[in-house]
């Protein structure tokens, strides 16, 4: 198993290399100029040109690319054009809110969606099933920002239970941390709940029709055990797959959720960087996201082995 993990981790290197080349090239050909943004609206064209030269943006593509790759190989993601801060520092400032948001969202989503999907399959074609699936359709089709505004209006402005915006670091205690994350996480979790619940239901419906389930029932095994041990374990592969795929959804959704709830996370960092053409920051964050995504896929592959002994690498 260790060698499998090592091999898979090593195989991420070429993937990251391709991502790096792609991101750098895309930004190189994209229109826009950070020097113009820095110089401001009153700056003269000469000022803009001098700032561009000062930032080294007037140098050829290949020189800039290889310099950047050299920096990355030495563990340096570069320095933000705008803030003059190391990109690693900026990412470090923003990692905790985004990871916290994703973690709490994941816990809420899996905690709600899997039982919902299991129960919907168990009670297939009843009002419980239809209600669960109607909820899933609603969750999937309502934009994240609409959900965010609605629940912020109700639970923050009207009821005053939660703050409208902001993030409390974990260092200030689990209570404040969780309190600041409930609304954004529920907002982000809805679409994810919808996705997982539908897949769980479909997978469970297939499993519950299998002979071994009928046999278990005939042997008098309890309903809960049939559903959550015999059924869910055998339906787990597609569910785990969709949870993994959903991490990409979470990254995309975090951008919107962080804006709506003013959470200082990586999503907002990269959007701000794109709008200003802060190339080192965009490149650093996209590389990080790619790396996380590759790792999540690795984790999903490893979980397959745990839930389905037939799978071998």
């Amino acid at each position: 198993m260790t060698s499998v993990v090592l091999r898979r981790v090593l195989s991420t290197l070429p993937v990251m290399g391709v991502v790096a080349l792609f991101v750098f090239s895309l930004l190189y050909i994209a229109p826009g100029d950070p020097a113009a943004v820095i110089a401001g609206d009153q700056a003269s064209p000469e000022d803009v040109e001098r700032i561009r030269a000062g930032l080294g943006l007037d140098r050829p593509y290949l020189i800039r690319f290889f310099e950047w790759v050299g920096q990355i190989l030495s563990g340096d993601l570069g320095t933000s054009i705008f803030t003059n801060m190391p990109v690693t520092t900026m990412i470090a400032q923003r990692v905790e809110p985004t990871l916290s948001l994703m973690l709490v969202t994941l816990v809420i989503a899996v905690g709600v969606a899997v039982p919902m999907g299991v129960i919907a399959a168990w009670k297939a074609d009843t009002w419980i099933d239809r209600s669960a699936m109607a909820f899933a359709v609603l969750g999937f089709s309502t934009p994240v920002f609409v959900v965010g505004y609605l629940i912020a209006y109700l639970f923050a402005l009207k009821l005053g239970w939660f703050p409208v915006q902001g993030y409390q670091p974990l260092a200030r205690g689990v209570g404040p941390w969780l309190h600041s994350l409930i609304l954004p996480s529920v907002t982000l979790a809805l679409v994810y709940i919808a996705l997982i619940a539908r897949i769980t239901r479909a997978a469970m419906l297939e499993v519950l029709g299998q002979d071994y389930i009928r046999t278990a029932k005939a042997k008098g095994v309890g309903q809960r055990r049939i559903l959550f041990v015999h059924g869910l374990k055998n339906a787990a592969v597609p569910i785990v797959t969709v949870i993994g795929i959903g991490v990409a959804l979470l990254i995309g959704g975090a951008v919107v959720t962080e804006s709506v709830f003013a959470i200082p996370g990586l999503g907002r960092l990269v959007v701000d960087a794109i709008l200003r053409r802060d190339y080192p920051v965009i490149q650093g964050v996209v590389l990080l996201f790619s790396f996380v995504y590759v790792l999540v896929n690795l984790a999903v592959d490893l979980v397959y082995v745990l839930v389905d002994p037939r799978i071998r690498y």
Partner: protein
Amino acid sequence: MDRRVFLQASLGAGLIGASGGLAAPAIAQGAAKRTLKFVPQANLANFDPIWGTQYVVRNAAALVWDTLYGVDEKLQPQRQMVESESVSDDGLVWTFKLRSGLKFHDGEPVLAKDAVASMARWSSRDPMGLMIKGIQNELVAVDDLTFRWSLKKPYPKMLLALGKNNAPCSFVMPERIAKTDPFTQIKEYVGSGPMKFVAKEWVPGAIAVFEKFEDYKSRDEPSSWLAGAKRMMVDRIEWIIMPDPATALAALQNGEIDWWENPLSDLVPALQGNSDISVDIADPLGNVGSFRMNHLYPPFDKVEVRKAVLTALSQEDYMRAIVGSDDKLWKPMPGFFTPGTQFYTEQGGDILKKASIDEAKKLLEKAGYDGTPVTCVVAQDQPITKAQGDVTADLLRRMGMTVDFVATDWGTVGARRASKKPPKEGGWNMFHTWHAGADCLSPAGYNALRANGEKAWFGWPNSPKTEEGITAWFEAADLEAEKAALVKTNEAAVDDVVYGVTGFFLSYQAWRNTLKGVKNGPLPFFWDVTKEA
């Protein structure tokens, strides 16, 4: 989990929420009282007010760095860090003496060498500073508190240059910081202003924190914009960046923030209906809407075509697209200088009062317009530019012009507008922007009005008679001469259509009633603002 356990868990969660959370260890009441939470107009993405000239940087810098002079609400420069000044009879040698006892945030005294290094850096970037630098003989420290600026020819606007609020302002930094190349960003944020910048708490895009500088030596005169006393009544100011206006609205209503610099006009009715919140005009000097035409390429290389566009445009259409139905927020502006100020004039501006499509069509025909497409580059991520761009595209089409509407973002417009290539090769014919009214008071900080061809602002207008008027203003010895010069400038700039003025508009600011002392002005002034519990 059975039903009872589920209900107990749900009730528990509800109680936690209802109790205001899991006992957030909030800052003590006293500390909360002394912290002012402010949502600025934009993200403070960098903090070098000479390197980056965005308004948000200037606004934050005014807390941290002091200036030699500061303009007051009558737009007159007043002494700030300077105790006295003298100018030789021939107007060539200025001698400035600093106030004694001024300190930087690191405890070091403010000396003449700091002012000299700071003025040298500032004068390499600021338009007025560059004019001074162009005629500079020598800029030297005479002793610890005195420095001398000698010139090759008189520069009557010296004090205005040193005190104006247009970015970049002449902020004074310690010599070691001010020696940084003006095109390279500084790395230390040490000033002598009333607040210290807390760099370790700065998360660009999220929060910037300022703490009261206890050793700040305030002036005794009453506070007036950038002049006079700067007494801080709060200990800490947090600038909280909120990209989403709806979130800022909710946060202000919920008491999570105290002051919002620029609420969207669409959201203002919701604020005005809240008895806990005050709403007022933010900056009485407002903003000037504009579109730039590229004078280098057809069709706008012909003044007749530019005039046809001015003849057709309705400033009301533009202003309503920007501010909506609130009539308090806009005015027609048939001229180039900020309405309601001393140099405002409508002389020569009749063409901007017509709004006649028929007449415009005739002018176009007379000019021989041949259907050349107008590449109109419009930033969609800025509500003001998007609104103006939509109005212009419709206007040009109604005039019978062919429009190549390029919908893009501000970052792209910022780069593309600098291109002097033909529109088909990545250049442009037209883009939209706006200028702070404070920049359009006079030619002092008004780059957009310059019409010196290749050296002019984007669009590169070439109007010698406009430049003559501007030069006459800089050399004018008294107010009457200044006014006369700017009447000529206005006439010439309209006649040659240096750029298209789309109107004058204002915006609101909003704050909770627990704040007292919030003023109107070209930037948010935090001095004398108190916060009640």
